[in-house]
């Protein structure tokens, strides 16, 4: 206290000077239009910046929520696209009676991958949706850039799926350019590549050809982009090509996935 008092006395002239300067500045800002507008402008700029920072912080808290709602919307959009594409395919022959069940057989549910593996012989991943969300075994799981796997076991809250990087996974896939189809399997070790088997030798394949789902298995809608042809060869004496496919989706970084349900299953198999 004594020190403070001494400080005030010692610098009293300077403090008085500061005080009066502040008063003068207040007067300047208060009574002069020009300075007032500049002050108001810069202070509103400052306040705006402050609000922006605070808003950003709050937004960050809401990111998860926002991402969830966006994923939900995305699922709805995917559902619409699959159904529209399918209706288009059905419409081209246009000689069959149309049924809404056939028209809109696909349901899409969004989910989050909560556990994943890529380095085992048979890889699985777990999603945060279960039977209460309508997940059933055998449904296809697609992701942002391709396909991810097939639902295997379903609990109430969670479900596990066999990854495409699993020796049990066989996915019907075709070359987009000429519709030759085969089954896509994983030959272990390399999580970036799969092998498309049983493409007949007469098929013309080019390096870089697009591989898509064939739509024959009903686990996946037709035409989902899987990857591109990296190289192809024939095993000795075989009549079939073996095609190495570079996966577009990086399974190691799987995060948001969409589960496709094909409700027209019974009808389609008839």
């Amino acid at each position, binding site marked *: 206290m004594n020190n403070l008092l001494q400080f005030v006395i010692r610098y*009293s*002239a*300077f403090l*008085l*000077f500061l005080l*009066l*300067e502040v*008063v*003068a*500045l*207040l*007067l*300047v*800002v*208060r*009574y*002069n239009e*020009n*300075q007032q507008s*500049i*002050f108001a402008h810069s202070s509103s700029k400052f306040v705006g910046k402050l609000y922006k920072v605070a808003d950003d912080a709050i937004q960050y808290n809401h990111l998860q929520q926002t991402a969830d709602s966006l994923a939900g919307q995305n699922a709805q959009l995917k559902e619409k696209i699959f159904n529209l594409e399918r209706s288009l395919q059905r419409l081209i022959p246009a000689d069959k009676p149309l049924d809404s069940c056939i028209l809109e057989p696909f349901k899409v549910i969004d989910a989050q991958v909560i556990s994943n593996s890529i380095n085992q012989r048979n890889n699985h991943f777990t999603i945060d949706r279960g039977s209460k969300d309508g997940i059933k075994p055998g449904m296809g799981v697609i992701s942002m850039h391709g396909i991810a796997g097939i639902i295997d076991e379903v609990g109430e809250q969670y479900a596990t799926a066999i990854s495409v990087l699993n020796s049990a996974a066989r996915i019907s896939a075709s070359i987009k350019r000429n519709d030759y189809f085969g089954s896509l399997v994983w030959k272990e070790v390399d999580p970036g590549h799969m092998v498309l088997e049983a493409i007949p030798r007469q098929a013309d394949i080019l390096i870089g050809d697009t591989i898509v789902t064939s739509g024959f298995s009903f686990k996946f809608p037709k035409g989902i982009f899987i990857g591109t042809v990296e190289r192809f060869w024939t095993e000795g004496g075989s009549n079939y090509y073996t095609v190495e496919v570079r996966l577009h989706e990086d399974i190691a970084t799987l995060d948001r996935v969409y589960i496709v349900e094909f409700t027209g299953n019974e009808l389609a198999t008839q």
Partner: protein
Amino acid sequence: MNTISLRHIIRALLMLLLQVLVLKRVGLSSSWLWQYGDIFIYPVIVLLLPFRLSRHYAILIGFILGLTIDMFYDTIGVHAFALTATAYARGLLLAYLEPRGGYQLSMSPTIFSMGINWVLTYTSLALLIHTFLYYTVEVFTFVYIGQILLKTLITLVLSMIVVMGYHLLFNPRT
């Protein structure tokens, strides 16, 4: 109230009148001056305050005087800001320019007492601070720093002519 105080007060009033009635009009009448400068003589009131007057009083006088000028110039606070700073700078300048023997009781900040070189240095430094701060606060942003410096320079030269003219013509003793 002794005669010296009375003399200071009367001189201050006269300078104020000179400033707001004459020099302000000179500034207004010429479009060139209006744009690029002004003539200030009123800071001299603060600069001519006796050496022995405490800095607090000088600062207070500067503030009140500045506000008075502001009322005439319709620039509330701008002159007050500049003149308060000048009054504070006066203390620093006096310490900086203190002669070897220190200030004597008989001394006053005039040519008669301190010589023309001392007065020239003292006045020009103080006026430089005053005009620069005046134009800075007037524009209220450093964006136009070039214009501020130009105005400061022109006003400083014009004001110095008037102030030194006063010193040389009237040669005040106190």
